């Protein structure tokens, strides 16, 4: 090796240079040289997960709660294929992740060698970009480039496939390129003329709405702060996607709550009735728009996004702005203040009166029977969890699984800052929340990290309880146990005549014993009188806890805009029959 470094050492040096502090991974034959390298250094910490999907979700949780790139290390073949769900999840939600995959030695590639998989082929549509390093001289550059690609522009996952011989043999190290990436140069600075047009359009609005998404969070704390400034400056109502919650504090009176399929009545009707819409870092996805031809029909639309392919994809807009959300917001504030014209205060006041009437419907209201022994409403459980955690005054991070509990968490847990809410939005991956909580807790050892879970989802990556035990991560798992794949059951009730095919969770484990078997504390609340006590004990317990909260199995999540229906066809409560409320046959084919 003539005094040179091995490929594995070069890899680790490049990772250190990129500021990597922790890797979530799982070893195997093809990555043994890398593990050997990790063993012989102290700068980078390794967290051993219990399934490679969990490694990627943990890296996502780490990335989303810190703004840094999350790093994953898995072996070839099954290690890589197990990671695919996590990669697609990160792709859909624009989360910066670099995933290192082992590969069989270069001379065996294509030979169906043991644990060989065409990882770059499989992950090509699952990543923002991927690399197969076939020559030692390409190694350091590939690693540096991967980090640039993962974190710049619209962030996303990048795979680097590393053949074992490249890791064992010697390789030259090179520093990160000084002038960035040769071909990938995403536009971050918006066109000032477009920003001025947008500001003028917004000033002339009578019924404005600001609709923001995960792009604001990804852009960074400053973008969220600027968004808050802009909302206060204009006094305009604003709503957020599932991914964007926390960018504007939920306590801001101008915040109308989440929009979309399970969004609030006031947010959706404001979208529907607006005359000017400003969309920032959101992508008009079908969970938000409902029926496209009835989506905000009367509004003139401004869409700012860092990804040009997000603009004019689903909804044609009048003023497209390509740029970083924070830069766009800074520009908008400047242009707004520079424009001497005043906005139409009377019209805005009238618009707020209308919105307040919608608000008065209290679309998220529910009735909790307070009698001893009464069944717990899931919404009540989240409300109490929220109130009791806020009272602690600690920094709270929430992750979720996927289903009704996720939507109730989005509706009833209130987020005041960005990067404290981690949920699988685009892919809707059951099993996301527990490993994501691992990543968040690793990044924030002092934080209070809660996975709001469903009893079905939690079983999809329950093995990560073992990771939690090993690293003494005090993650709290709060299961809304309705004994059903509740979201599936809800659709079956509303759309399929109440034929509950395969959505009942028979043979559930005893979650208390399950927790104990993983060296955690198990708690259970059976009825409303036990709820507060269970939450109190959970929050007081220093180590990890699983709190199994038995909730009403028949509760549905409302409001709901059924697939393919318009925003003003929202179902507000169980009293409305699904079919009667705008669910059409074409809507039935949608997911």
């Amino acid at each position: 090796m003539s005094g040179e470094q091995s490929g594995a050492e070069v890899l680790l040096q490049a990772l250190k240079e990129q500021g990597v502090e922790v890797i979530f991974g799982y070893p195997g034959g093809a990555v043994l040289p890398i593990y050997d390298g990790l063993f012989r250094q102290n700068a980078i910490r390794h967290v051993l997960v219990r399934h490679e999907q969990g490694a990627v979700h943990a890296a996502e949780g780490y990335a989303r709660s810190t703004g840094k790139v999350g790093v994953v290390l898995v072996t070839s073949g099954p290690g890589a294929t197990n990671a695919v769900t996590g990669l697609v999840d990160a792709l859909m939600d624009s989360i910066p992740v670099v995933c290192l995959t082992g590969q069989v030695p270069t001379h065996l590639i294509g030979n169906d060698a043991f644990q060989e998989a065409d990882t770059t082929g499989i992950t090509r549509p699952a990543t923002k970009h991927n690399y197969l390093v076939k020559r030692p001289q390409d190694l350091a550059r590939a690693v540096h480039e991967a980090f640039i690609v993962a974190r710049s522009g619209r962030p996303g996952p990048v795979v680097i496939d590393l053949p074992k011989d490249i890791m064992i043999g010697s390789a030259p190290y090179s520093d990160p390129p000084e002038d960035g990436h040769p071909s990938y140069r995403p536009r971050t600075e918006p066109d000032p003329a477009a920003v001025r047009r947008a500001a003028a359009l917004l000033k002339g609005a009578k019924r404005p709405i600001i609709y923001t998404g995960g792009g604001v969070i990804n852009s960074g704390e400053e973008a969220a702060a600027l968004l808050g400034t802009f909302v206060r400056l204009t006094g305009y109502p604003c709503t957020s996607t599932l991914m964007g919650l926390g960018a504007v504090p939920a306590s801001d009176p101008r915040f109308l709550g989440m929009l979309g399929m399970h969004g609030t009545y006031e947010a959706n009707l404001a979208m529907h009735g607006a005359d000017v819409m400003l969309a920032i870092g959101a992508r008009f996805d079908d969970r938000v728009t409902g029926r496209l031809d009835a989506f905000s029909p009367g509004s003139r639309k401004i869409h700012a996004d860092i990804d040009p392919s997000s603009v004019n994809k689903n909804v044609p807009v009048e003023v497209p702005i390509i740029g970083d959300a924070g830069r766009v917001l800074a520009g908008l504030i400047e242009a707004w203040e520079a424009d001497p014209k005043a906005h139409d205060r009377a019209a805005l006041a009238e618009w707020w009166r209308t919105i307040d009437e919608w608000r008065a419907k209290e679309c998220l209201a529910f009735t909790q029977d307070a009698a001893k022994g009464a069944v717990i409403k899931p919404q009540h459980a989240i409300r109490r969890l929220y109130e009791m955690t806020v009272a602690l005054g600690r920094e709270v991070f929430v992750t979720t699984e996927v289903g009704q509990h996720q939507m109730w968490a989005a509706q009833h847990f209130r987020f005041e800052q960005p990067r404290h809410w981690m949920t699988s939005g685009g892919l809707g991956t059951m099993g996301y929340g527990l490993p994501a909580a691992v990543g968040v807790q690793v990044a924030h050892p002092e934080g209070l990290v809660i996975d709001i879970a469903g009893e079905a989802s939690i079983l999809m990556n329950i093995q990560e309880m073992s990771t939690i035990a090993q690293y003494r991560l005090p993650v709290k798992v709060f299961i809304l146990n309705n004994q059903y794949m509740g979201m599936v059951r809800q659709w079956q009730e509303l759309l399929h005549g109440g034929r509950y095919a395969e959505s009942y969770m028979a043979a559930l484990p005893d979650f208390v014993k399950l927790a104990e078997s993983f060296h955690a504390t198990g708690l259970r609340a059976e009825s409303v009188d036990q709820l507060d006590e269970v939450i109190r004990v959970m929050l007081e317990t220093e180590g990890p806890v699983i709190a199994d909260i038995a909730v009403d199995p028949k509760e549905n999540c409302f409001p709901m805009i059924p697939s393919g229906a318009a925003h003003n066809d929202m179902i507000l409560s169980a009293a409305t029959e699904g079919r009667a409320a705008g669910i059409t046959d074409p809507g039935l084919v949608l997911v």
Partner: protein
Amino acid sequence: MGRDASLRSATISVLVENEPGILARVVGLFSGRGYNIDSLTVAAVDEAGRQSRINIVTSGTEMVIEQIKAQLGRLVPVYRVADLGREGPHIAREMALIKVAGTGEKRAEALRLAEAFRARVIDATTESFIFELTGGTEKLDAFLALVRPLGLAEVSRTGIAAIARGTRTI
């Protein structure tokens, strides 16, 4: 921007870093998102062989074609995307090798047509010709339609290469 539902054909040239998998990436983008590919060519175009040019002929509504360009543009190894028809006049050429088998009057007629179309004879036997024909897609289609009844046996087409007229470069 309106919702124009009418379809148009677009000739898109993409300058890319010549790295392994780039073609799979472009083709996968088209298949994954349900876009049409009417023609696709790719070859290295710089001295060092580090950059390739991909020419794609596709069709779709205006909104879809704008999407295709944006989707191509955000691929990491892509330097530039040019919508040749939209950015000014351009030239598109394609080459075909066309085997016509037959004897007698049909054979003679095939040769006459080839002359009229300025197709070159690059191989001949007493029972066959191979013509080499270069031109726009429509010219090639027209020639093929004419020689089909005369014993068209086999065709190999390159797909189009396209470039902007004048001094403009990608």
